[in-house]
């Protein structure tokens, strides 16, 4: 993919040519083996960055709040406990915030019903939480819809493979600095795609390494943690977990007692952490004497995902960042989720995460395109594999749009089934007699069309009832995305 070098330039190379060639070979093999899964995880991840916004988009009709009173929290807790019991011995409330202006109550599971409800400003349950398309995408990104622990480990392994691709990509590109700003469009397809692949990869590298590393540790945590905790804690896993996530269980006194009012706990919290923004409140073992109240909060300048105070039923603090200051290691571990998803710096950070996530998808896709172009240049084309890749790269966004349309048509529970069927249909299309160039353009048009249908159907479904303006912002963004893809499809057709 690089132009021939002069003898002088060759001498100046930092790494031996044979080494670069060997690493490039490994890079190609690994890329071919895992790029489809990497693409799927990266594409869903780039969308999941906006999960909170998508949840609001999917359900824009509930009350939009900026704050709630302690009395509303008390009423909400009583209502959810009466309605849904406690999940795993706990009930909780998520308080309205800038990112999610909803008052959400979470209880145990109800047969045939939901355990998560949206409440109004008085704490009355209004409607069950329902965002199946967002839930589908989050689960696809986190564990590929495989059984939870196994799926997480698979995603973690894919993360390690992506990290290997990133490192080998740097090693296989000896002119990384000299060509840092070179982007040749047009000319030969292989050169164009190589420039795109290398430039996007070079400048996005720090971000790609950040999200890949955090994602790998989150995914393969149990795999790595098991072995390390066995030696670091001499097999005492309970101590290991307690040191990392804090006390695991509250007092085991199961005698009945009323759920206490939250007002004194909230006041106590505010007095201890005046700058803190309380995000959620959880009651472990409600209506027992051993119940404990945990308040999760966001501290100024802290990224940690798990800042919390734990009170016993009498109002005594049993655990807090001041009583048990987190070690550097614990703080680093608890910072991984917000760092991975970009949930710490407001909309600008999320947009940057989303754009760079899409850049990683383009890097993955262009890597495949380079390999196909190289095969064609060598007189050994692989048209079936090219079509397979086109079906993956453009089919998945089309399927995501289709899955998001289903709830708008009243189909709420079959997202995974629809994804499997549509993925099978998309790959079946690879075998059709459609000419290659039309095949690619048709997929692009399908994505644009389905995205436009999604936005229009959403507007028609919620116009007049939506209370959250985020719905219209997301619809506009989807329409803009559909327009951009339509323009690219049109250009490609003209070029063809």
């Amino acid at each position: 993919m690089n132009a021939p070098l002069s003898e002088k330039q060759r001498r100046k190379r930092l790494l031996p040519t044979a080494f670069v060639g060997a690493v490039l070979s490994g890079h190609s093999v690994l890329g071919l083996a895992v790029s489809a899964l990497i693409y799927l995880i990266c594409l869903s991840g780039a969308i999941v960055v906006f999960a909170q916004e998508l949840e609001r988009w999917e359900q824009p009709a509930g009350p939009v709040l900026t704050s709630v009173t302690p009395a509303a929290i008390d009423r909400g807790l009583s209502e959810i406990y009466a309605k849904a019991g406690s999940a795993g011995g706990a009930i909780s409330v998520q308080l309205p915030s800038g990112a999610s202006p909803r008052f959400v109550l979470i209880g145990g599971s109800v047969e045939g019903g939901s355990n998560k409800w949206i409440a109004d400003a008085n704490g009355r349950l209004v409607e069950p939480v329902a965002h199946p398309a967002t839930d589908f995408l989050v689960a696809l990104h986190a564990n590929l819809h495989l059984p939870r622990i196994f799926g997480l480990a698979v995603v973690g392994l894919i993360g390690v493979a992506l990290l290997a691709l990133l490192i080998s990509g740097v090693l296989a590109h000896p002119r990384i600095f000299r060509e840092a700003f070179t982007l040749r469009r047009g000319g030969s397809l292989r050169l164009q795609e190589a420039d795109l692949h290398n430039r996007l990869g070079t400048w996005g590298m720090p971000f790609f390494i950040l999200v890949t590393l955090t994602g790998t540790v989150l995914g393969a945590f149990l795999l790595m943690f098991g072995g390390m905790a066995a030696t670091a804690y001499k097999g005492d896993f309970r101590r290991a977990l307690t040191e990392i996530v804090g006390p695991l269980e509250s007092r085991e006194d199961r005698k009945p007692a009323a759920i206490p009012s939250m007002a004194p706990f909230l006041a106590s919290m505010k007095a201890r952490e005046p700058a803190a923004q309380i995000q959620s409140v959880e009651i472990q073992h409600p209506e027992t004497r051993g119940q404990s109240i945990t308040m999760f909060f966001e501290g100024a300048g802290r990224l940690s995902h798990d800042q919390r105070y734990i009170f016993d039923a009498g109002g005594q603090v049993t655990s807090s960042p001041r009583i048990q200051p987190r070690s550097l290691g614990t703080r680093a571990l608890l910072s991984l989720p917000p760092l991975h998803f970009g949930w710490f710096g407001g909309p600008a950070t999320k947009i940057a995460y989303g754009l760079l996530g899409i850049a990683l998808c383009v890097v993955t896709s262009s890597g495949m395109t380079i390999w196909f172009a190289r095969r064609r240049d060598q007189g050994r084309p692989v048209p079936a594999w090219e079509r397979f890749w086109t079906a993956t790269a453009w089919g998945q966004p089309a399927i995501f749009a289709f899955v998001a349309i289903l709830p708008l048509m009243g189909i709420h529970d079959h997202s995974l089934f629809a994804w499997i069927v549509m993925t099978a249909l998309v790959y079946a299309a690879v075998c059709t007699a459609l000419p290659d160039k039309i095949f690619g353009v048709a997929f692009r048009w399908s994505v644009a069309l389905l995205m436009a249908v999604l936005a229009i159907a959403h507007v028609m479904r919620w116009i007049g009832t939506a209370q959250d303006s985020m719905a219209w912002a997301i619809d506009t963004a989807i329409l803009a995305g559909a327009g951009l893809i339509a323009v690219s499809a049109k250009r490609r057709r003209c070029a063809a």
Partner: protein
Amino acid sequence: MMGLAVALLRSGWKIGRSRGSIRVAIGWTVLVVSLNLLVSALGTLVGLTIATLAFSICGYGAVILNSERRPLRKARARISSQDACPQTRSNGWGRGSAAFLLAMIAALAVGAAAAGLPIGLPVNRVTLFGLVLPFFWAGLIIWVLSEARLGRPVLGLCAIIGASGVIIAIEVLA
């Protein structure tokens, strides 16, 4: 500032290594200073992450400004050429198993052995090696996939697993 740093790097690299070295040096300096400012203003982790995002987006902007358009040209098909494609590699399954399975076992064994070393708090060791381990693991995968002969990395990985096993046994028995 991040944009200025990228612009200086761009102009320095554009005019060549000898004449542009001062601009490149200033560019790197501005980059480090802006990183430092972000870290001191926003905290280490948030500052570093925002710097990462700004660096990438400024870089993309500079690349787009520097892009050139060429007339479309179709490459001539050749019958054969030197290539680093998978067909030149034998032992596909063996290599794949070694790259994923053996490298995973070796990396996890090294992580477990390192986490047992009596240095600092256990939670800090678990975190530190937990964050370093994926890089080591990725390095092993690259090694297995890049070596022309599969035997060398397989032997190397077995040696790593053996040595780590001995260290783990000593740590557990001590």
